[in-house]
């Protein structure tokens, strides 16, 4: 496979829009409430990258593929199921009310992830 095809395959999942089923409520463990997830600063539709897993990883394959070497982070989304990921670590939300500007490390301004406590 050419490098261009490799990238296209990985990036396509980032660029496919959410369908109806994708908009349901998330489970307990999603990339979006993991410490290691960096939300893209560009929008709050949920795209981002993992700070630990690298490009080529896939936490949804059977078994999950973990690549820790390389430059680019594993592109993933806030509501992606992370229950199978061994690197998942639940984070404590800092930015709760969204009246300050984006901090990719802490911003989780999505209705589904609001801290109910």
């Amino acid at each position, binding site marked *: 496979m050419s490098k261009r095809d490799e990238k296209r395959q990985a990036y396509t999942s980032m660029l496919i829009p*959410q369908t109806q089923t994708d908009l349901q409520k998330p489970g307990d463990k999603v990339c979006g409430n993991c410490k290691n997830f960096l939300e893209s600063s560009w929008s709050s539709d949920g795209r981002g*990258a993992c700070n630990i897993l690298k490009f080529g990883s896939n936490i949804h394959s059977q078994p999950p593929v973990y690549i820790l070497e390389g*430059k680019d982070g594993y592109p993933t989304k806030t509501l992606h199921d992370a229950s199978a990921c061994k690197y998942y670590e639940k984070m404590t939300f800092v930015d709760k009310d969204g009246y300050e500007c984006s901090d990719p*490390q802490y911003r989780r301004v999505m209705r589904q992830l609001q801290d109910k406590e």
Partner: protein
Amino acid sequence: MAQAALKNTSIEEFEKKQEWWWAAEKRRSSRLDYLRKAIWKKGAIGGLYAPGVKTDLEQAVLTTNMARSLENAPDPYVVKSAKIFAHVLDNKTIFITDHAQLVGYTGSLPHTMNWNPSIASILNAEVFNDPTSIPDPVDKNQAVIQDIVGYWAGKSDLDKMMPVFDMEDMMKMLSGSIGWGVPLARGGYSNKDYEYLMTGKRAFQEILEEIDKKIDEADELVHTPVANKEIALMYDKLNNWEAMKICLEAGIRIAKRYARLARIIAENFEEDPKRKEELLKIAAACERVPAHPPRTLQESFQYDIFIQMMSRTEAIEGAWPCRPDYYHGPYYDKDVNIDKTLTPEEALDLVGEFLIRAAEVCQFKPKFAREGLQGIDGTWVWTMGGVDANGRDACNDLTIAFMQAARLVRVANPTFAFRWHPHVQDKVMREVFECIRHGLGYPSIRHDPILIANAMHWHGHPIEEARLWVHQACMSPNPPTKHGYQPMRMANATANCAKIIEYVFTSGFDKIVNMQVGAETPDVTTFKDFEEFFAAWVTQMKTIFSILVRSVNRARVLAPTLTPRPFLSAISERSVESGLDTLDPSIARGNAWITAFTWVENADSLAAVKKLVFEEKKYTMAELKEALDKNWEGYEEMRLDFVKNAPKWGNDDDYVDSIMLRCLDECAKFSKEIKCPCGNNWPILPENVSGNIHYANIVGALPNGRRLGDALYDGGISPGPGLDKNGPTAVLKSCGKIDHITQGRAFLLNQRLSPTQLAGEKGYQLWRAYMRTWADLGLDHVQFNMVDDSTLRAAQKDPEKYQEVIVRVAGYSAHFVDISRKTQDNIIQRTVQGLG
């Protein structure tokens, strides 16, 4: 303020205390006071919309239902788009506010924000995910949104475009690290062909007749007994004309709906005879425009509002290019001075309400846009003053009326930009100054002769057209003419330039978004001298700019077929004449530019590296790289060295100023290598909006001493806050070394002035002297904040009492209480310049 205190304090007392907002409240008419307080504030604070403001589902539902019904219809895409547009206008809820004389709003109700789901499915996901703006009942409406989002997944403009962009470029752009915006024709902002539309020669009905003639001619051609390329291409033109007609006819119909509503209220509900008369006047105006050219000031404003409403129904419009004193001026003159059908006070009410109608406009925006444009929906920078096509002073009585009305209604948006030239009369300059002195933060001042020459230099606009220029958004001139006007400016040709210098240290890897974004330049520790370092900077600059420009170019080329704009085409002479969509590059001259956010950090950082690493050899490059990598933690003394002991821009210091000029020279050279699909250049334009706050957590540590999380400089060629130590003339002199015609498109300069120092006639003369220096040095732009620290600090503590305090953020103004705390602090930090 307690009503009693407001009642017992005179206007003069408030003005003496420089509490202009209370003075304005007392001075304005009861109508304007009501309408001003009626506005639902739609600008986001930080990233979230204010409580009570809700996303409007009506257009989304109407659009989706109509799209569903047309799925199997035998219509070309452009005609379907037009039919959807018409369906929305025919069926949306309309309203008339008490005491209003002007009507028309993009949403269905005053507190709602318009949402067009056909533009970008990533925007749609944000609507679903937004924690505060889904209207009640939330569960039911979330299900409605879910259905709409599901329908448009894969069908929106962005979804159609995405597969035909370069995937790698898109991922880099959508990471949010280097750019700001989407390459979509319906997701940016459009100027208009005002010379075609608003000179009184025609309106919708006349354009319909022109189109009918074109259709008849084309129909005859395609049935001649021959076949060729011209005929093959004519069918698309016929489809475009058909779509244009559908849009114009719908535009006429919705106006008549407003006329009908006004009559119904007058005849069935309203008891006050004076108000009945006003409602019947509204009805008459809406029967007249947009079908036919306006005859009065009220009709002229109404025409303009309808056009904007329709344009914002068809697309997301992030700006409001216009020149209202120039195009509405003749009607003001006729009504107030010639026919005397309006008193100046009545005209002022209309002008003030026109500002209010613009202030209330809102379309749901993605979070990055809300953060970058805190406190406002988009940059409505209205162009005032200037010259006409023959180079003569174009200021008129309406120019003055706009300045006076602005001081009464104190909206932050629209904001004015005044085209100064050497023949502007003193009475106009005084009005301009009064607005600034009243703390509006506008008008910004533009150097007209410089910018006319600039428009001719960069984009080859003929002088008669260049003289007519309006602000495409905050800063960039664009003539509203047949081939000159720009139908889409996509904000994603907006570069986060601080990344240029950051990537020199990381060889193009972005640690915040975990991706190789920039060029893989050599390890910075291998550079033997400043020249090698600077060469890497140039490479990163070219890489970042190219990524952004490539996607805009691609979108422009595809736009006429994939994302056409039949309504905008219908009001553009070049489209009505040719049958081509107005986005087609072959019929436009081109007016592209790259907005350069976070620009000055580069010069300050380059100067620091040159001095402290390469010349004085106080630190090695490895040490600096390590310190930046660690976000200066454990390196505070070194960081302060880079802050205090390296020269900073804005101090008339040739060391750093020459580096700035060198950076601009490289960009100017490159600007002529990268071309738009019209074949024209891509000059840069340093300015920021509130990107300096939005990017604070996205740009890493830099050699000018900043840490990740610190606010960036406030933009354009403004010195870093507090870093200009040598007074206002030194700032002007630094900025004056730039050639504002050939080294870039335009250059934003923020200055903060002391309200106390600029009181009275003496203050005015001080300001005029400052402006003479500004003009003589050939700067193209300056804008002022004139609010003192104590007022701003008080507003932070007690926002309820300071609702109408306005500050200049960057290319726009906002109410101080409507921006995030971090942005507020950043504005307070800006140096207050003492003049004289």
